[in-house]
């Protein structure tokens, strides 16, 4: 007679070792990784021409715009960047091709003070495709098990420390995002997860949509990716807490 407990035992689900160990390829597959422009690659020019969202120039790559579509890949790009690409400053998402990403490129933010040991996160969908939402929800599944790190998702902004926003803010959602932000008690942090709330991502420039979450509320951490993988979102949440891995450092 099969039972759930027997099933759970035989199944042997392996919970991610992240952040104690680096993210694996299974957790963040190739093109879901941040692209790194390769210095001096003659083909970079073609890659720049192929980018559908203008995320790259010969000089730099803007991870806040890059939708990781890999169209530039055959030319001068490698999708092997560290998953710890989130930053507290929008400008830091721009990486120069002259200085490929490496250890220490992204400094861990100083912890945003005032948070207790555990962190409560409130998710707001400002206009997403649902993939970002599902990647955030995946953090609760046993393969990521965010609770082991003291991260909990709440269903009310009044009990949250962190506002995690996904999707490009639509004018219809903007008031609701603002209301949620105001409902969070201080101290509070805002995470913009995915390129949609950072720059509009694939929808950048659509008339009528906001250019990014920063037009609405101050953003503390930007998480590039389309969508960011669960461990990348985890990294950003830990960053708020000052517990993140340093980029590139294994």
């Amino acid at each position: 007679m099969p039972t759930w407990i027997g099933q759970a035992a035989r199944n042997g689900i392996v919970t991610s070792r992240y952040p104690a160990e680096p993210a694996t390829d299974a957790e963040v597959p190739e093109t879901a990784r941040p692209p790194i422009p390769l210095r001096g690659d003659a083909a970079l020019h073609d890659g720049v021409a192929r980018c559908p969202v203008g995320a790259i120039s010969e000089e730099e790559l803007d991870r806040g715009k890059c939708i990781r579509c890999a169209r530039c890949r055959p030319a001068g790009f490698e999708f092997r960047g560290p998953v710890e690409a989130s930053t507290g400053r929008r400008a830091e998402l721009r990486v120069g091709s002259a200085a490929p990403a490496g250890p220490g490129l992204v400094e861990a933010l100083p912890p945003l003070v005032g948070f207790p040991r555990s962190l409560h996160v409130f998710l707001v969908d400002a206009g997403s495709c649902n993939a970002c939402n599902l990647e955030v929800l995946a953090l609760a599944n046993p393969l990521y098990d965010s609770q082991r790190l003291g991260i909990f998702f709440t269903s009310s902004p009044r009990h949250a420390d962190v506002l995690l926003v996904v999707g490009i803010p639509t004018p219809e959602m903007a008031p609701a995002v603002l209301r949620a932000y105001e409902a969070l008690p201080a101290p509070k942090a805002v995470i913009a997860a995915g390129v949609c709330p950072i720059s509009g991502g694939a929808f950048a420039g659509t008339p009528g949509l906001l250019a990014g979450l920063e037009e609405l509320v101050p953003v503390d951490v930007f998480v590039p990716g389309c969508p960011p993988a669960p461990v990348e979102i985890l990294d950003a949440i830990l960053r708020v807490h000052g517990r993140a891995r340093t980029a590139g450092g294994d």
Partner: protein
Amino acid sequence: MSAVRPSETEPFDPYGPERALAYSPEDATFALFNDYATGRPVLRHGIRIPVPTEVRATWQRSRTPELTRSAGPMETIEGYGIFTFPYGPVSMGVPESGKFEVRTYGERILSLEPVTGFKSRRILTSIAGQPISDGALRIERLAGNFSAAHAAAYLAAAESAAGIEVPEGELWVRALAQELQRIYNHVHVLARLAEAASQNVGAAQTHALAEEMLRIQGSIFGHRWLFGALLPGGPRRHLDAADRRDLGRRLNLHSEQFERLWELFLGSRTFIDRIQATCPVRREEALRWGAVGPTLRACGVAWDDRLRVPVTPYNDLFLELSQESAGDALARMLVRAREVQSSYLLLEQMLDRWPRDPGRLLSPAPPVAPGRGLARVESPSGDLVYDVTASDGRVTRIGMRAASQANIPLFARGLRNGVFTDFHFAWESFGLVFAEIDA
């Protein structure tokens, strides 16, 4: 303006140059239906399907403005102590943003009206005038967990409009991607239902199985959600024999694990009792309001685009139609579970019989009219239609009808007389996605 009764239908003629998916000047008062007797699509008026204002504005109005907004499936119920309770758009337990206006006197739901449009990213409008391949980037991000279905339908319609033939191997890759994603979505629905029923161990195991499918997709296509996997005219990823063996091996393990979990769910009285009789849809209602997908098949209607629309490779493969008759959340889940099984079987057949000559050029969709393409695919939640007009490699007009748009009125009706605690079971059992309703 003359009122149109909700049950009125007119034949939908895909060959008429200006007739397909014509939006009414009022708030979207039509839906595209299947005539289940003849197999032909029909237009039915008087049903509110939200369509973004811009879409309406840019669409050529081929229809005279004689349609009127009807109350649709929802009418206001008045009485002592009855009030309207706004639910959403955030913090509603459903992880997407959307809103419902619920008429209630406390516990029982008297009526429920979905208010959509919160997430409208103006995608269809923004694609008009763009090259077909740039449109594809937005379409696959229209509803991330249905990306393969949307991309496949959009591409087939756009390619057929532009007169582009597609290598047979690419059509197989598109079908393969869709079947993988169908399994992911159905397993995800099962996990969410288990979660709602507080079946914690089962939910955790099932979520892990859904995650494994994302990882399979990630390792095969380089992207967990298959973005960029399907490209106009040809694949980014050719599956060679070694890839296919590897995929087959991982799918075998996946299906064995699914069978074990499903058996446990079927043996769980608490789980089955909780979803049985929840949010029922009667057959006549499903036909009247135009339900699609597992919602439709769960109330005894045998319709699956994969069997009805003759495209490669489905026309070469064996597929058993899953059907139930009770129409409730349990019936929908039973249909999904059997579809998971039949998708494994489809994938096995595909991997076994991969075309010898993958470069042979084929038309991706049955022809409609020069410069115009119409494609229908069975997305995880049901029939998905794209209607694209293109010239010089650019999209000039685009219309779309998603499964969630067709099914949301049935969800709203099914919850009538239900209680609030039914809400999540009902929602998950329909597999509705606001992202594709709002687009």
